[in-house]
């Protein structure tokens, strides 16, 4: 555990922004703090960096207390690198001078800066000024500048949100590979659940100033702490269930509970759209399907690689619509009669 945040409180005036945040970051890992705008994630980052002081609770890095109400280590003494949104390059300095900014004087002229620029893949741009760079290039310079001081931890505040969509995934992959290769402990703040799930080793979800859940991406996706989080991480079907041991009896049939989970009585289970299998059938009114639940495609959203189908159960007046994700080539037009089957274990929703 290299970075440890314990019971952190912070408010602006009467507005409580952080209400007891606990966060643990493993050495060399990439942790994403995921939350909607205004949930306090930037404030959390700023307290860790030392730009704001904690009101209660503590922040420690590699066993050293940075802020606990008595001790306060100023940002320049923390050894934490910080990359704000849009990079925040110093506009009056060249790329080289930006990267060299935090280095001791004797290292500024050596091979350190060219090496760093090479590392982030923009070796030839050293003499440019920030406004002559594209958004992605600016991000790389900001990253090189923060890494130049070999920080114990690196904080990235929505680093990719200012890039346009075509560029974003490319820069994201490169930065990810670089951070992996360097093995630098990173905390990344984002509002994009896809970004968090695809990049991070650990995702911590921040909501209303509290960490709702922290864990590996797959765990969060499959076993979300509550219904709201389940929906935030991706489309979801919430279905009534009667529990019996490790199975749930639902209108989609008898479904196994994930990880041998057991419950009793009645409640809700979560079925992701990609767990629902759809097949077209000949339209034979009145005849019960031999296998699965009969229904009809009400709407089809086609995304190319896949498609999201809204399926209305047969005999329903519009209630109990199911979402199903199918491969793009298996998309079905609205009005197609289908049979629906749920696959794989499902999770109980709290």
């Amino acid at each position: 555990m290299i970075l440890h945040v314990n019971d952190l409180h912070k408010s602006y005036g009467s507005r409580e922004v952080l209400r007891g945040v606990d966060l643990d970051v493993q050495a060399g890992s990439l942790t994403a703090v995921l939350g909607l705008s205004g949930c306090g994630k930037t404030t959390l980052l700023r307290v860790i960096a030392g730009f704001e002081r904690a009101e209660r609770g503590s922040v420690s890095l590699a066993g050293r207390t940075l802020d606990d109400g008595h001790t306060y280590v100023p940002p320049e003494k923390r050894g934490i690198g910080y990359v704000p949104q849009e990079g925040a390059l110093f506009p009056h300095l060249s790329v080289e001078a930006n990267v060299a900014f935090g280095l001791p004087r004797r290292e500024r002229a050596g091979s350190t800066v060219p090496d760093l620029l090479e590392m982030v893949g923009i070796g030839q741009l050293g003499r440019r000024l920030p406004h002559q760079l594209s958004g992605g290039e600016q991000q790389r310079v900001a990253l090189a500048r923060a890494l130049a001081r070999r920080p114990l931890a690196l904080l990235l505040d929505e680093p990719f949100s200012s890039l346009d969509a075509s560029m974003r995934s490319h820069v994201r992959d490169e930065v990810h590979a670089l951070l992996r290769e360097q093995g630098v402990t990173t905390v990344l703040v984002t509002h994009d659940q896809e970004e968090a799930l695809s990049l991070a080793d650990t995702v911590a979800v921040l909501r209303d100033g509290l960490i709702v859940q922290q864990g590996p991406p797959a765990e969060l996706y499959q076993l979300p702490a509550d219904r709201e989080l389940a929906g935030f991480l991706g489309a979801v079907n919430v279905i009534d269930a009667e529990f019996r041991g490790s199975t749930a009896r639902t209108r989609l049939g008898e479904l196994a509970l994930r990880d041998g989970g057991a419950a009793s009585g009645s409640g809700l289970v979560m079925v992701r759209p990609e767990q629902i299998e759809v097949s077209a059938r000949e339209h034979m009114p009145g005849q019960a399907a031999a296998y699965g639940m009969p229904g009809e495609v009400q709407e089809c959203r086609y995304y190319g690689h896949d498609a999201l189908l809204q399926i209305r159960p047969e005999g329903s007046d519009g209630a109990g619509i199911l979402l199903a994700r199918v491969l793009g080539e298996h998309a079905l037009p609205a009005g197609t009669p289908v049979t629906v089957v749920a696959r794989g274990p499902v999770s109980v929703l709290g």
Partner: protein
Amino acid sequence: MSSYAPAQHGSGRWSQIWSGRRRWPLVSVAGGLIAAGLVLLPLAFLVIEAQRSGWSEVQRLLFRHTVAVLLWNTVALTAACTVLCAILGVGAAWCVERTTLRGKRFWAVLLVLPLGIPDFVVGFGWVSLDHSLHGYFAAVLVMTLSLYPLVYLPVATSLRGLDGSLHEAARSLGVGPWGTFFRVTLRQIRPALLGGCLLVTLGLLAEYGAFEIVQYQTFTVRIFTEFKLGFDTVSACSLALVLVALSVAALIGELALNGRGRLWRSGPGARRAAPRVQLGRWSVAVIAALALLCALALGVPLGALLYWMIRGSSTTLPSSSILGALASTAEFSAAAAALATLLAVPVATLSIRHRNRLTVLIERLAYLPMALPGLVVALGLVSFSVRYALALYQSSLELIVAYAILFLPLAVVGVRAAMSQAPSNLEDVARSLGCSPAAAWRRITLPLIAPGLAAAFAFVFISSATELTATLLLRPTGVNTLATKFWEYTSNFAYGAAAPYAALMVAISAVPAYMLSRRVGVLSDRGGAP
């Protein structure tokens, strides 16, 4: 395969010494409070001095027949000039920006240049050519010709940025061209027009020299006489309080009128340039009118200066005293510009980076001198120094402080604009890269705001170099600036000797006037073809 080895970073003990709580900007707050205190100082001592003999005496002094006459003179003049400036300013701006007039950039520069001639030099120009010119008519003429660019500039800028689609919408709804002008165009330029009129009004209330030259009694002239000739500070300060009240009333009036206008801002996004009016047969008349305006506002004062310089050089050689006056002018103005810029930095920092009730108040106080005539500030400082700090009375320092207070708003505007280009997160990043707060400011913010500091310095320098009223009251004995030397010669009707001093002042202040006009010119380049 971790090739990454974190470096050693500062130990906890060192950092604990730096016991900064939440970054409360102590230095900025202290600087801001000093600036606010300096602005309030002359006002406070004006009040203290006025009621030295009790409030009943103040009442007796204010409820006199003379005060009613002064009030009428001042208000009648202000009303007439403001209306005329509004008509001239809007008319000229409309002709240049909204019609197919040729040589727009030429006119844009020429129409703004009168700003570069101090008002008392315009007055000198007219009166030196025609001694019979005095009283109300002369005052209205001189002040209108001096001040109309204050309306022209903002209105021209606003007309430039006019959204053509609103114009088209009005026309498509069946409103004719004149109706569209009054119901749409005029509404859109209203904030600019009101802002310009406010500046004209404040300029009129503060003016002293031009009124003295055309022998028209306003509050400033009377206050000056009571103080300088009658040595009656109580009476002078009481009258000065009325002057401050008039200025504040003008400020509040503009705020009230503009309150609704401010809602009238269209969102960002691509705008269509409004169509230009075809002048056709009217173009000759428009060109003649603009030429006449420029001839009166620019040609007469400059022509008079030239005439007296040529005539004067044959009789009296410009003595070495012009160099002495130039040197002391430069010295005082540079010191004042440095002080005002220094005070503007914390005010701008607070207002942009730490907005709260206290800092907003500090910022408003820093703008207050816009409504404080030079005479008022000078009187307040005299009252303060004579009673409480005699060593300061008529010292260079007092004059420099007076300039700095008077032109603090200019400095704040300049620094504020630059400060908004230096967001505080850049300093945050610098901190995370190992800079102390002071080093982060020096290495990041200072270089970024340097152009703004230079602009602020230049504007305060130029305004101080042409300041007359406060200088007459506060200058150290035996020291002359360009303005006071000019004034001395003019008062003795030595026009030939006075002219070179005025020419130097015009040369100094023509630079910013030209820059301002060019800025409008740049805007018109961006506006696209007619």
